[in-house]
C-alpha cells in the first residue's frame, strides 16, 4: 500500500510540475521568446505564436507520455526505486522541447546594435532585508540546535542508527553509528537554512531590467516582483529548515528508542512545504508574471533594455555570462525567478560553495555508510 501511495504522489507531483512548465510562456516578459529577445512586436506576431503553440502541444503530449510510461513500468515492477523515473523523464522532455523552441526563436532575433541600458535614479531603495536576515538567522539557530542535540546524545546512541524513513515515518534503513551518519541531517539543515536565507537576500538586491521609455511603470513592476520572490524564498527556506530540524532531532530520538518514527509534525510540515512551494510558484507566476510582466502591461510595448535584452550575453537562453556586469542575480529569460551571472566571479564562487557543501556532505555520508 505504501508503494502505491508513493507512486500516486509522484505522479501527482509530475502533473503539477509539468503543469507549471507548461505555463512558462504565459509568465514571460513581452519580447522574450523561449530565452531569446526577439523584440516586442515580433513577440506578438504569427511566427512567435506558432512556436508557442508547438510548445503547448509538445508539453501536453510529453506529460501524458511520462505518466503513461511510468504507470506501465510501475505496474510491471512495483518498486519505490523507480520513483525518480517520472521526474527525470519530465525534465528531459522539458529540456528537449525548450531547446527546440529556443532554436526556432533564435531565427527571429533582431540584428543591429546592442540595446541601451537604463536605470532609474529616483527608484525606491531595496526593501529592508529583515526577512532574508531572519531566514539566515533561523537557519543558523536551527542548524546549531540540531547539531548540538545530535552531539549531546552521540555517546548514548546504539551501534546501529536509522538513516532512512518510509512514508509512514517508520525507519526502513539502518547503518553503523558514525559521525557522518549521525551529523549528516543536522549539517544539511545548517547549510540549506543559511543558503536559502542568503539566496533570499541576494534576490532582494537582484538586478532590475527595465523598459525604456516608461521606466516608472517598469521599475515599479520589477520591484514588486523582486519583493514577492524574496518573501517566497524566505518563507520556503524557513519551512524547509524547520522540517529538517525536526527530522534531525526525531531521528536521534528514534535511534534512542524514545520514538517509533519521525515526528508527525515534521511529516505535516513536509507536506505543507511541498504544497506551498508549488502553489507559491503558480501564484507568483500568475499574479506577478516573470519580472513583473503582468504588472507592467501599460509599459510592455516599450523595449526591454540592457543585459536581459542583449542576446550576446545569453547561452542557450538559460545562462547569463557578462563579466562587465557586477550583478550577481539576474532575471531568468524563461521560467520564473533569477539565475546567476556566470561572468561574475563572486556569483560563481557562491554557487560553487553552496553546491560543493551539499555534495561534500552527501558524499561523506555515503562513504561513511
Amino acid at each position, binding site marked *: 500500500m505504501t508503494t502505491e501511495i508513493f507512486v500516486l504522489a509522484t505522479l501527482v507531483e509530475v502533473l503539477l510540475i509539468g503543469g507549471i512548465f507548461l505555463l512558462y510562456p504565459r509568465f514571460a516578459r513581452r519580447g522574450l521568446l523561449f530565452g531569446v529577445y526577439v523584440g516586442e512586436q515580433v513577440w506578438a506576431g504569427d511566427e512567435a505564436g506558432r512556436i508557442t503553440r508547438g510548445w503547448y502541444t509538445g508539453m501536453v503530449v510529453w506529460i501524458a507520455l511520462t505518466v503513461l510510461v511510468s504507470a506501465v513500468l510501475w505496474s510491471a515492477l512495483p518498486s519505490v526505486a523507480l520513483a525518480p523515473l517520472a521526474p527525470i523523464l519530465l525534465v528531459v522532455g522539458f529540456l528537449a522541447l525548450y531547446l527546440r523552441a529556443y532554436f526556432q526563436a533564435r531565427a527571429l532575433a533582431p540584428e543591429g546594435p546592442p540595446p541601451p541600458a537604463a536605470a532609474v535614479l529616483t527608484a525606491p*531603495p531595496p526593501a529592508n532585508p529583515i526577512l532574508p536576515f531572519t531566514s539566515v538567522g533561523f537557519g543558523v539557530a536551527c542548524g546549531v540546535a540540531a547539531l548540538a542535540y545530535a552531539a549531546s546524545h552521540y555517546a548514548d546512541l546504539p551501534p546501529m542508527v536509522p538513516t532512512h524513513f518510509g512514508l509512514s515515518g517508520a525507519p526502513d534503513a539502518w547503518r553503523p553509528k558514525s559521525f557522518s551518519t549521525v551529523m549528516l541531517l543536522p549539517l544539511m539543515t545548517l547549510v540549506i537554512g543559511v543558503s536559502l536565507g542568503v539566496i533570499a537576500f541576494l534576490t532582494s538586491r537582484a538586478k532590475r531590467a527595465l523598459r525604456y521609455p516608461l521606466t516608472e511603470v517598469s521599475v515599479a513592476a520589477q520591484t514588486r516582483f523582486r519583493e514577492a520572490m524574496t518573501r517566497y524564498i524566505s518563507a520556503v527556506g524557513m519551512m524547509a529548515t524547520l522540517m529538517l530540524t525536526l527530522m534531525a532531532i526525531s531521528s536521534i530520538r528514534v535511534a534512542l528508542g524514545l520514538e517509533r518514527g519521525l515526528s508527525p509534525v515534521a511529516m505535516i510540515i513536509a507536506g505543507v512545504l511541498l504544497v506551498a512551494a508549488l502553489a507559491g510558484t503558480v501564484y507568483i507566476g500568475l499574479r506577478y508574471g516573470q519580472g513583473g510582466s503582468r504588472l507592467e502591461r501599460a509599459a510592455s510595448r516599450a523595449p526591454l533594455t540592457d543585459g536581459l535584452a542583449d542576446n550576446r550575453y545569453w547561452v542557450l537562453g538559460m545562462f547569463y555570462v557578462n563579466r562587465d556586469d557586477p550583478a550577481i542575480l539576474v532575471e531568468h529569460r524563461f521560467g520564473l525567478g533569477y539565475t546567476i551571472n556566470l561572468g561574475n566571479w563572486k556569483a560563481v564562487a557562491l554557487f560553487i560553495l553552496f553546491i560543493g557543501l551539499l555534495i561534500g556532505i552527501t558524499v561523506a555520508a555515503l562513504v561513511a555508510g
Partner: protein
Amino acid sequence: MDTAVTVLIDWSSAEPVYAQIARQIRSRIASGDLAPGLVLPPVRGLASDLGVNLNTVARAYWLLEEEGFLKIRSRSGAEVTAPLRDADPATVERLRQQLAAALSRMRQAGLTHAEVRQQAEQELAALAGHEPER
C-alpha cells in the same frame, strides 16, 4: 507620462560610459529634475542596474562631486547638492573660459553665429525655471 528620472547608456556612442552617466545626471540636476537633498542610488546598485563596472559609476560620481553637483555618502549613495548661493569669482572666470572655448569650437566646426546663439539659448531654456535661491 513617465516621471521617473532615468539614465540611459548608448553602447554605440563614442562618448565614454562614465561621461554619459555624468552628463545626464548633471543636466537633470541643472534642470531641477533631481532636487537638492535627493540621494542617488549607491554605486553598486546603479552599476548593477546598468550592467556596467563599479568603477565606471564611481568615476561619474567623483567627477560630479568635483564639479559641485554631488556629495558622495560612502555606501548609501550620493546626495545632490544645492547650487552655491554666491558665485565665486575665480570659479566664474574658469567657467567663462570653458564656455568661450566651447563656443569657439562650435564656430570652428562650421556653425554660424546665429546657430551658436540658438544652441546656447536651447540649453538655457532647458535650465529655465530652476533659479537657485539667493
